[in-house]
């Protein structure tokens, strides 16, 4: 190992400038020990930068969403006129109640997709997902995931914001489920029993 070889890591780190950099580069190109290091790193870093698109600036809407959340975190400011705040709070509570009632009347549907054995993801048109031999299948209901084992069959009985309900007709499933808010549930029924989520991962 020549003293010049010891400069190669610093060259690849980008720590050298000017004449030092030029000399180290010249050495690395001609040295049998350093050339593979230089070429491999260049190949990787150039390839990586070419594959990864630059990150775009945040849109105005994204910044607004961020600032709305930030304001929600801020400490409440004391009002000089408490009765104004009480009246405003009462009006806001009334508005929230109306919205919640409205949502209860018409629960929105959670998107349900099935991932097939070949990796293809298709919208779930019917209600049944079958685990193909050897590889099984994956059911995506919103952000929740249900692994359907090989030779298994599961039927999606209901999927909306309030409730996701599955019936296991054959075989076994594993579910990875997000935390449920009060009034929401995720359940799997099978053989006369119903398993309702209390944690975030379970098997049936």
């Amino acid at each position, binding site marked *: 190992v020549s003293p010049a070889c010891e400069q190669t*890591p610093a060259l*690849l*780190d*980008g*720590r050298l400038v000017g004449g030092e950099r030029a000399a180290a580069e010249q050495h690395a190109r001609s040295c049998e020990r350093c050339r*593979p*290091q230089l070429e*491999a*790193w260049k*190949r*990787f*870093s150039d*390839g*990586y*930068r070419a*594959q*990864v698109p630059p*990150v775009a*600036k*945040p849109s105005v809407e*994204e*910044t607004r*969403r*961020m*600032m709305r*959340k*930030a*304001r929600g*975190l*801020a*400490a409440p400011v004391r009002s000089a006129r408490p009765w104004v705040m009480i009246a405003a709070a009462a009006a806001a509570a009334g508005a929230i109640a109306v919205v919640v009632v409205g949502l209860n009347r018409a629960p929105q549907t959670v998107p349900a997709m099935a*991932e097939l*054995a*070949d*990796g293809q993801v298709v919208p779930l048109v019917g209600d049944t997902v079958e*685990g193909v031999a*050897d*590889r*099984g*299948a*994956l059911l995506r209901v919103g952000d929740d*995931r249900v*692994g*359907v*084992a090989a030779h298994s069959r599961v039927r999606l009985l209901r999927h909306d914001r309030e409730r996701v309900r599955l019936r296991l007709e054959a075989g*076994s*499933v*594993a579910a*990875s489920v997000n935390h449920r808010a009060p009034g929401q549930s995720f359940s799997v029924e099978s053989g006369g029993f119903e398993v309702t989520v209390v944690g975030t*991962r379970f098997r049936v």
Partner: protein
Amino acid sequence: LSASREQLSARDDLAAQVPSDAELMERLKRGDTQALEPLYERYRGVVYAIGQRHAGRLNADDAEDLCQDVFLTLIKLADRYRPGNTLRGWLCGIAVQKARRLRQGRWFRQGLLSKFYRPKQVPFGAGQVAEQHLDMERILDRLPATSREIVVLCLIEDLDAADVAAALGINVNAVWTRLHRARERIRELLEEADG
């Protein structure tokens, strides 16, 4: 000459109007959340990139959620910021912590589901090199976590060693040592892929 003097003076005035990180953090400490907006516009790119590349291939919504989580954490931790420290490195550190947790959560989830469902794997190796489509992100995925972190941070917008060290809570010499180790492993993986 007088025109260019005016231009320089206008540029200096503009620079004086742009608040520094320390000034904005001071306002944030006092509860002025409006100070977050310029910080978000200034550093959202690098935080987004860390989320996207460190936690794995996040979709746009997950990456945005992670960004917002990082900046909301900044509000909560504003008291701990000391002027003179690099805010960029500090934010990157919060992003790395959150991305690690996200990656770990996905790893557990995939571990459980993979017992039931195994999607078809795309082969990794010589065939791809021949087609000149070697996926560098897949090379990155095969690195140990500490090596992947250091490579991602150094390659993203060319973060300097001081920022990387601040982000990972290590000293600058440890950054160079880890980067050297990561490069060695990358070379081995490229040779392996070449067959």
